[in-house]
């Protein structure tokens, strides 16, 4: 029953929407009924699936790159207080800069021949901060008595980071990657919008294209695919986080 609850809400909302559209005879270019969206979804599904895969792969590549950069930088800040002061304030600049504002610039840099690189770069920028911030917090979360023990046994800086701080950071890293993955997907879509209909043929492009032709049902169908993909990605990462935590805690 608990698991069914959100689906019941969804069914009620869709039902209300369908009835309202028919009763009030809303023009379909303004708001098509869910049945029309379903038809558009069925009809467009092959091209939508292809576009969804492009967007998802952009987000996943970005997640991997953001993870590598963020964890490496966080480890450098953990090694030395000076580098920490040098890096951390700049990292927050990345967080507060809206990705839409950066998109035109990055598109120029990546070159109009390689819009997919610009998309990945922009998604990396968005996914970077939660992973970096989680890693920084996690690397400082080690049990102080374990830190003392490492000191007592003469562990070097690198040994401390690799054998104590990094493993201690695992729960924070899992959380950071979960949030980062969601943001990478959002970042990829926002970047696609920024890129316009250039060579980037992700889901955002499908939405823009359908919008230009006033095919509202197809717009909503693309949006539904995007939403479903986001939910699926979140579910996968949540499961990975649970597994990872269970392994880390040892039960």
């Amino acid at each position, binding site marked *: 029953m608990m698991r069914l609850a959100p689906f019941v809400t969804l069914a009620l909302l869709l039902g209300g929407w369908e009835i309202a559209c028919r009763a009030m005879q809303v023009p379909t270019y303004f708001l098509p009924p869910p049945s029309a969206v379903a038809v558009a979804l069925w009809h467009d599904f092959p091209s939508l699936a292809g576009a969804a895969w492009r967007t998802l792969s952009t987000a996943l590549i970005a997640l991997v790159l953001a993870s590598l950069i963020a964890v490496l930088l966080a480890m450098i800040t953990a090694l030395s207080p000076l580098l920490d002061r040098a890096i951390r304030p700049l990292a927050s600049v990345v967080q507060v800069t809206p990705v839409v504002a950066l998109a035109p610039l990055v598109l120029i840099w990546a070159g109009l021949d390689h819009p997919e690189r610009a998309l990945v770069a922009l998604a990396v920028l968005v996914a970077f901060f939660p992973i970096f911030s989680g890693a920084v917090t996690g690397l400082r979360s080690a049990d102080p008595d*374990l830190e003392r023990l490492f*000191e*007592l*046994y003469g562990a070097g800086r690198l040994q401390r980071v690799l054998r*104590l701080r990094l493993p201690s950071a695992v729960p924070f890293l899992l959380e950071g990657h979960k949030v980062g993955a969601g943001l990478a997907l959002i970042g990829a879509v926002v970047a696609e919008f920024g890129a316009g209909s250039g060579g980037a043929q992700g889901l955002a492009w499908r939405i823009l294209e359908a919008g230009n032709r006033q095919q509202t049902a197809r717009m909503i169908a693309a949006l539904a695919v995007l939403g479903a993909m986001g939910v699926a990605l979140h579910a996968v990462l949540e499961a990975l986080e649970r597994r990872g935590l269970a*392994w*880390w805690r040892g*039960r």
Partner: protein
Amino acid sequence: MSVAALEAVEVDYAGRGRALGPVSLSLAAGEVTALVGPSGCGKSTALRLLAGLEAPTRGVVRRAAGRGETAVVFQAPTLAPWLSARANVALPLELAGTPRDAAMRRADSALARVGLAGAEASRPAQLSGGMAMRVSLARALVTEPKLLLLDEPFAALDEITRRTLADDVLALWAATRPAIVFVTHNVEEAVYMAGRVVVMSRGPGRIAGEFAVEGPTPRPARFRTQPEFRATAEAVSAALAEGMAA
């Protein structure tokens, strides 16, 4: 022969003033010493000085400074949750550069000595409080230290487990005879385990008195009921009460 000593040490903490001292304390090889005192008397600070984890504001700390020559067991087991019991115990050896295989073998035998043969692959979360404390003890013993420092190691355990572990620590001591210093606020535990009980008083922490405990170590059965044990425990309690009133 002295393995470690505090010579007229004082510790000041910024904003809180004098926490400890002046205190002088010399530890003979193989001697079991208990530091007893009310909370805030600086006994844990004294232990951290001996471990080299803290430096005195004034005075001199002499200690065996070689890797693995001093070992500490904290109040909590302080195990890495992501490592097996074996890997936790092998950690001090691995940090010192012992090859992995040899470190694991020595860890297994240390675990066997504390009665945990068969639990090598368990994670800390799968162990009871007493077992986790034994893993912590095995980790301290694995480097065969000359000085073993115990900071209220049984404080979080129930009475039965405490008593068993006290006997086990003494049995382990008998095998390699390291000097042991352990901090506690439990008078009976101090008198039971130590050959020498040092009572500390508060504000700032100083040594208020010292008592020698007669009798064989490890302790014979029913040692707690013998008149000498009772008399020493009463004397230590009296000194403690005096120190707290001062």
